């Protein structure tokens, strides 16, 4: 006992072993099932899109560091993750330069212009996707591998049919394909089961908080059910699962307070359903997340937990 030393110093005394590169590694690992599954099911087109997107984002990161002469952050894997996430939101049969350009602008415009990792207001992958969607709408909404063929509209995704041609729409017919092999959608929408495997890894490792995805998907299910639609279809269709677990939970762009996360999730669900039912787009997950990204600091400000030992409302 005589030799026992007490270290005196300011908190924190217990350090977690997690750092940025470890978290990024686990998120990429959680995305591997869907990535491998997509390449297996969709084949070379998906592989090209994924490779080009990652090449674009990692290349942009390297270029930025070379120009600004700041320390390299490629090794933390955040650029590769952004590229992978972007690729998973793209249709498999887009031109090869489109994901390359997308990965490039995700890193330059959406990340480094705002100050780099940790300072970006919006999710970089989704900013890039929004820019790609507005610039090349034809490719971004038609380049599906096997679009649903109804009324000679070969560009259709199930959500598109549900919205524009409700007469020939049958929700039950799509639900099974959503779970395992859906070829009428983006690369990351190929199988909900594979996405949920990845999500389970992240939840188990406590890398993401359950509140945002739970309240996001729950709100969508509740609102579609209340509107008299099939909630299972609307939860599984489109980018909701990948958006809720992998994009809405982005540390940088979502609130950190527990109550704030609940508000954030409910807001995401409400905006998504609003866009899916009342806008001229058939999918609303991307713009819902970008919109709520904007509100995240505000939500955080008004949802601070009460400081332990302090009576009444928390004050800043």
């Amino acid at each position, binding site marked *: 006992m005589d030799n026992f030393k007490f270290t005196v110093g300011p908190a924190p005394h217990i350090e977690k072993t997690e750092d940025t590169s470890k978290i990024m590694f686990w998120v990429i690992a959680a995305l591997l099932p869907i990535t491998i599954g997509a390449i297996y099911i969709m084949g070379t087109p998906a592989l090209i899109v994924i490779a080009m997107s990652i090449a674009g984002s990692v290349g942009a990161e390297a270029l930025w560091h070379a120009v600004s002469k700041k320390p390299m952050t490629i090794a933390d894997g955040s650029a590769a993750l952004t590229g992978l996430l972007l690729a998973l939101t793209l249709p498999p049969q887009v031109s090869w330069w489109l994901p390359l350009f997308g990965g490039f602008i995700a890193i330059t415009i959406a990340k480094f212009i705002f100050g780099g990792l940790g300072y970006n207001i919006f999710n970089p992958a989704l900013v890039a996707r929004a820019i790609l969607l*507005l*610039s*090349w709408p034809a490719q971004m909404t038609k380049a599906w591998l096997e679009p649903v063929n109804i009324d000679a509209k070969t560009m259709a995704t199930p959500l598109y049919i549900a919205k524009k041609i409700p007469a020939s729409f049958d929700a039950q017919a799509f639900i099974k394909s959503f779970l395992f092999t859906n070829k009428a959608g983006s690369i990351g929408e190929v199988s909900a089961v594979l996405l949920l495997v990845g999500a389970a890894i992240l939840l188990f490792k406590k890398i993401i908080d359950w509140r945002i995805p739970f309240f996001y998907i729950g709100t969508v299910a509740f609102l579609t059910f209340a509107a008299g639609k099939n909630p299972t279809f609307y939860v599984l269709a489109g980018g909701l699962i990948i958006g809720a677990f992998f994009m809405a939970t982005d540390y940088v762009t979502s609130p950190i307070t527990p109550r704030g996360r609940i508000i954030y999730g409910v807001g995401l669900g409400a905006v998504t359903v609003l866009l899916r039912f009342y806008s001229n787009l058939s999918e609303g997950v991307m713009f819902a997340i970008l919109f709520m990204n904007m509100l995240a600091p505000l939500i955080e400000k008004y949802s601070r937990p009460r400081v332990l030992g302090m009576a009444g409302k928390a004050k800043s």
Partner: protein
Amino acid sequence: MSNLKVAWADFKNGLVVENPLLVLMIGLCSALAVSSRLENTIFMGVAATFVLVCSNAIVSLIKKVTPPTIRIPIFIVIIASFVTIVDLSMKGYFPAAYERLGVWIPLIVVNCMILGRAEAFAYGNSIFRSVADGLGIGAGYTMVLMIMGFVRELLGSGKIILFDSTVLSLGSAYIKDPIRILVFFPGAFLVFGFLIGALNIVRQKREQK
């Protein structure tokens, strides 16, 4: 000679140091809206400069008899008169451009760039200096507008069309798939943001020297 020097300083001030769009950030609404085509920006720039110079001159001329309590309504009446002149002449001589610019020409009346210069400069300075200031601010506005119009039209549509003839083209392969977002509103904000950033870098470099 010193008079000319002062006027030249006023002109340069409007062009760069107090550039209405990139530094003062006033009159943005119409600038972001019309800069999707280079041709529009030329008309808009000339129209706004004309109104600026004329209203600055008149405001400066009658500043001694303008009661301070109702000066803003008086400025508005002066500006509105010149905007009406521009509006009707453009309608008569350039109907196609007038059609494209639409509501933005009459809206020059409420462009805070023009009212701002009347209030901040012309109301307190001589007519000679006020005209120089109007020319400088107008030139700074037109310059930035034309850069934005050039970048947005060239990259957003792949070619530049001036007075019904293609003056510059990036090739048919690019025209088929241009970065279309640049001709929409998000593109206006992106290009504008990059211009502000570029100017700030130049200024920082200068201050370091």
